[in-house]
C-alpha cells in the first residue's frame, strides 16, 4: 500500500531565462523560477502517498559555473502552519503518564526538502539558520516564552523527531536534478498522511555556497470530491451526519442479518 504514485500531471516550467539573450558587458543577476501547472492536488480514496514533481529554471546562469556544477538548488514544500502540543510521558507509580507539555505556535504541519546535494555540502550551517531553511533550522515559536531554554530545546528536538518519524518532515538528497544548464526538476515526497491546506513551494538558489535568490509558488492540497464531502458534512451538518452514521449502522446490521443469517 506504500507504492508512491506520481503526479504526472502536476507541474510545468517557466522558461523565462531562455528568452533573455546573454549580454557580454555586465552579466545579468541570476534568478530562479518555479512554476506549477496546477494549483491544487486532490487526495482520493486510494491515496497512499505520492511524489510531487516541480520543474523550474535558472535565469541568466553563468555557463562556466553551471558546467562546474557549482549551482545548487534546494526546493521545500511547506505545509500550512498550525499550533502543536508536544507531550512527554513520565513514570508515575510505575505507570507512564503524559506529564509535561509544551505548545508551539505556527509549526508547519509538513516540511519536505529536496536538494541537489547533501545539505552540509551546499552551504554553511549559518546561512541555513538565517534562511530558516531545513527541518533542523525551522524556528519553532513556543507559546509560553517563560520556559527554560533547555526545556524548549528538548521539546523542539522531540517535535522535529516525531514529525520526521511520521514521514511529515522529510529530506530527499539528490531530489533536485539539473536537466540542462538552466532547467531543473525537483521531486518532493507527499506522505500518506499529508495534511490538507495551502502548501508553499519554495526554491532556493545557491552559487558556490552563496545564497542568490528564492522563488515561491502555492499549492492547494485537498481531499477529492467524495472524501471532502464527507469531511465537510461531518463538520457543517454534524447532527445530520450523526443521524446518517446511526442509520447506516442499523441498515448494515439489518442487511447483514438478512444476507448471512444462520439461525
Amino acid at each position, binding site marked *: *500500500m506504500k507504492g508512491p504514485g506520481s503526479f504526472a500531471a502536476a507541474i510545468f516550467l517557466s522558461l523565462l531565462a531562455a528568452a533573455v539573450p546573454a549580454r557580454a558587458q555586465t552579466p545579468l543577476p541570476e534568478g530562479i523560477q518555479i512554476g506549477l501547472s496546477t494549483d491544487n492536488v486532490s487526495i482520493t*480514496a*486510494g*491515496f*497512499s*502517498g505520492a511524489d510531487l514533481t516541480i520543474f523550474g529554471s535558472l535565469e541568466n546562469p553563468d555557463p562556466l559555473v553551471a558546467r562546474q556544477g557549482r549551482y545548487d538548488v534546494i526546493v521545500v514544500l511547506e505545509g500550512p502552519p*498550525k*499550533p*502543536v*502540543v*508536544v*507531550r*512527554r*510521558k*513520565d*513514570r508515575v507509580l*510505575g*505507570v*507512564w*503518564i*503524559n506529564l509535561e507539555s509544551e*505548545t508551539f505556535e505556527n509549526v508547519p504541519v509538513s516540511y519536505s526538502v529536496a536538494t541537489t546535494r547533501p545539505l552540509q555540502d551546499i552551504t554553511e550551517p549559518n546561512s541555513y539558520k538565517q534562511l530558516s531553511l531545513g527541518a533542523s533550522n525551522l524556528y519553532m515559536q513556543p*507559546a509560553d516564552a517563560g520556559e527554560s531554554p533547555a526545556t524548549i530545546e528538548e*521539546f523542539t528536538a*522531540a*517535535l522535529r523527531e*516525531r*514529525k520526521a518519524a*511520521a514521514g511529515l518532515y522529510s529530506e530527499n538528497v539528490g531530489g533536485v536534478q539539473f536537466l540542462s544548464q538552466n532547467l531543473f526538476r525537483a521531486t518532493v515526497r507527499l506522505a*500518506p*498522511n499529508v495534511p*490538507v491546506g495551502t502548501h508553499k513551494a519554495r526554491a532556493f538558489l545557491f552559487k558556490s555556497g552563496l545564497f542568490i535568490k528564492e522563488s515561491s509558488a502555492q499549492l492547494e492540497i485537498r*481531499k477529492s470530491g*467524495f*472524501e471532502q464531502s*464527507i*469531511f465537510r458534512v*461531518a463538520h457543517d451538518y*454534524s*447532527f445530520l*451526519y*450523526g*443521524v*446518517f*452514521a*446511526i442509520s*447506516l*449502522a*442499523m441498515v*448494515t*446490521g*439489518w*442487511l*447483514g*442479518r438478512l*444476507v*448471512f*443469517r*444462520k*439461525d
Partner: protein
Amino acid sequence: MGIYLPIAEISVNVFVLLAMGAAVGFLSGMFGVGGGFLITPLLIFYNIPPAIAVATGANQVIASSFSGALSHMKRGTLDFKLGGVLLAGGIVGSTGGIFVFGFLRRLGQLDLFISLLYVVLLGTVGGLMLVESVNALRATRSGAAPVLKKSGQHNWIHRLPLKMRFRASKLFVSVIPVLGLGAGIGFLSSIMGVGGGFIMVPALIYLLKVPTNVVIGTSLFQIIFTSAYTTLVHATTNQTVDVMLAFLLMAGGVAGAQYGAKAGQRLRGEQLRALLALLVLAVAIRLAIDLFVTPPNLYSLSGAGLN
C-alpha cells in the same frame, strides 16, 4: 488495497479493517456482546487516533447489536420495559461521559484514562467471570446441577424502594439499581466507545438476577440506543465519527456475527462464559503491559485546541 479515511485523515488497508470487523463480529455473535471493547483497542493498536477510535467504535457497535437484537426480538427474549429503564439511565450517563471525554482530551490525558478504564474494568469483569465459570464447570463435571439463579434468593439490591415489575424478566425490583446500572454503562460507552455489554451482561445476571436467556437480548436492545446516542453526541461535539471506517468494520462485523452466533450454540453456557472471560482478560493484560512498559516514544504530538 489502501483507502483514505476522510475523518481520521490517514490511509489504511481495507482488508485489515474487514478482517478486524469479521473477527470481532464472530466473537460478539458467539458471546452476545457488542464487541466494542475489542474493536476500540484494536483500532488504537492500528494507529487510528484514540478519539476517532472511540467514536467510530460506538458507531460500529450499533450495527452488531441491532443485528443481534433483531434475532432476540423474534425469539421473544427481549424485555422492552427493563431495556427502557436501563436506557433512561444510559442517556444521562452518556451525556456526562461526553463532557468528561472532551475535558480529558484537552488535558492530554484521554489515552491514559481510556487505557486505565479498560484495564480496571476488563480485568475485574474478566477475573470474576473466569472464577465463576470455572467453578460452574467443576460443578458440572462432578455431577451437581449448575445453580446460577434461585428466584427466592435476595440481596441488598432487592431491599431498595421504588419497586417496579418487569414481566418478561420475571423480576420485581427497585428502579434505582436499574437506572444506576444504565447510567454507569452510558458513561463508559461514551468514554470507551463500547456498548457496555461485557459489564451489562454479568451485572444483570449476578446483581439483578435476570434470567440468562433474557439478558443478552435486553442488553443488546439498550446498547443500540446508548451507542446511537453516543455516536450522535460525538459527531456533533467532537466530529470524530468516521463513517468510512465504521462502515468497513460493520460490513465485516455483521457477517462474522451470524457465524459466531451459530458457533456459540454448540457450546454450553459456562464454557462460553469461561472463554469470554479469557478473552476479556487477554485484552486487559495487553493494555496493562502498555501502561507499565517503557514506551518506545516518550514524546507525542497533538494539535492544540481541536485535536
